[in-house]
């Protein structure tokens, strides 16, 4: 009887498919004989496993089967009936390979044919083994994956840099919006926000604070006699003194022409607040030179303390600090007055 034509073609194909042709189609193929020894392998795989004699070596010498079936020894029986496999390299356990397996000959009489490829560790493997484009079959998507990984990294870098630039811009816009341009201390807006925050914090068990209203005395005459440039210089000097006399955690703000406010976090000791006020006044009273000229100013201060209130609000505290300031002025300027605890508690003005 004649052999059917299709079968003859298969035989011809099988005879023609030597290791070289297989290697071209599948650079990572592995042919194991029925005893689990390497009969042939593709050029990329031999680059990865080499150097050294590979043909005839046992499978287990170079590979470890991941999730092998329990109780089965020998690669042939462990792979029996499987189509997808996962391996790792003995020499590089972190690099995993995956692939498919097929019987060669009836009942795997001529062994097993494995076609392997790198999974997610492709990029590491390429670096580790110095692989090139020719180590991958053109039908493999490895090149696209590498390309995509690199393109993605480039785009991400660009996005990260953009985010940093935007964040910097946001911060500087924010700080510009909350800074008094003449003196560099906080402005009214920043002060209002900080005061609101402190008051809200009190409700949640936050620390107490004091609000001090500082108003310069005789400032107008400096402006009138020495000019606005001298006045500006003087205001910058006042801001510097206030910052030097307070702590980093406190806030100094310029809220009007010659008006400053201080938010003193954690301050509740009346005596210490009073001496702080007097120290500030003493420093502001030091002679101020502008060019050849010298002038003197002073300051009046009014202070309100958050512990004096059951439920402090910004309006009431500001009004009480103002009233204390007014008292300082009325008593002859150059003084520091504290809003009285009882007056505050009763909601009265000092």
């Amino acid at each position: 009887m004649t052999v059917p034509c299709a079968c003859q073609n298969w035989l011809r194909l099988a005879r023609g498919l030597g290791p070289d042709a297989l290697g071209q189609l599948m650079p990572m193929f592995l042919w194991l004989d029925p005893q689990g020894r390497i009969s042939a392998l593709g050029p990329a795989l031999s680059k990865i496993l080499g150097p050294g004699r590979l043909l005839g070596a046992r499978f287990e010498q170079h590979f470890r089967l991941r999730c092998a079936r329990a109780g089965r020894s020998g690669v042939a029986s462990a792979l029996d009936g499987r189509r997808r496999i996962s391996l790792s390299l003995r020499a590089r356990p972190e690099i995993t390979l995956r692939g498919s397996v097929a019987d060669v000959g009836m009942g795997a009489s001529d062994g097993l044919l494995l076609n392997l490829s790198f999974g997610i560790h492709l990029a590491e493997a390429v670096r580790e083994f110095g692989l090139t484009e020719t180590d991958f079959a053109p039908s493999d998507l490895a090149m696209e994956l590498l390309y995509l990984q690199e393109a993605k990294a480039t785009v991400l870098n660009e996005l990260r840099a953009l985010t940093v630039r935007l964040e910097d811009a946001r911060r500087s816009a924010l700080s510009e919006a909350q800074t008094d341009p003449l003196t560099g201390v906080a402005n009214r807006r920043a002060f209002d926000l900080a005061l609101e925050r402190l008051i809200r914090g009190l409700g949640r068990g936050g620390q107490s604070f004091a609000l001090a209203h500082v108003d310069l005395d005789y400032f107008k005459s400096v402006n009138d006699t020495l000019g606005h440039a001298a006045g500006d210089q003087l205001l910058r000097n006042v801001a510097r003194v206030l910052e030097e006399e307070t702590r980093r955690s406190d806030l100094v703000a310029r809220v009007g022409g010659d008006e400053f406010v201080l938010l003193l976090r954690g301050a509740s000791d009346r005596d210490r607040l009073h001496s702080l006020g007097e120290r500030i006044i003493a420093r502001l009273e030091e002679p101020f030179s502008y060019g050849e000229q010298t002038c003197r100013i002073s300051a009046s201060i009014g202070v309100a303390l958050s512990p004096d209130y059951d439920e402090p609000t910004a309006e009431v505290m500001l009004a009480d600090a103002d009233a204390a300031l007014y008292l300082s002025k009325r008593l002859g300027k150059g003084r520091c007055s504290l809003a009285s605890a009882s007056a505050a508690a009763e909601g009265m003005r000092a």
Partner: protein
Amino acid sequence: MHGLINKSIQAFLRANYGQRLWLQVAERVGFESEGFEAMLRYDDQLTEDLLQASIEALDKPRGALLEDIGAYLASLEPIRRLLRFGGEDYWEFLQSLDELQGRGQMTLPDLELPELTLRTERADRFLLIVRSTINGWGAVMTGLLRAMADDYGALAMIEQADTADGQEAVQVVLLEATFNEGRRFELARPVGGVR
């Protein structure tokens, strides 16, 4: 227009002609920000204005300017590397150009790259047809293909051309795909990233 394109023009002007010329061009088009952001979008007209202002500032024909931009792009290491993924040698690279638009969109879906079709006219003679809503990509590709021929070490003659129906195109005569060694390219990204 994708910011990457405007930023490329900006980077090209700064690298080849200096910061002062870039500022001059930016002034002409009324672009006030410090520079383009590669990952933002800008009005299409701005790109056209930018090119026009560059042409005037440099007193250079449009085609020549665009060719220079193409060559500059291919000289940037991240872009050069991505282009080299196209193939093992220049012949393979040419064949891969049909997929360039797709590759670009795989990374940045809204990047307006031209649609490229490689037509093989003779064994060593190719016509790359460049279709885009933006006029000028043919010249950019001409500069880019020339620079990549150097990169691969290929010997080729590359000129701007037009198809019979008026499409932009690039004529490539490939004399030798591997004339000299070309520049190195390894699949693995250099450690520490590409700069």
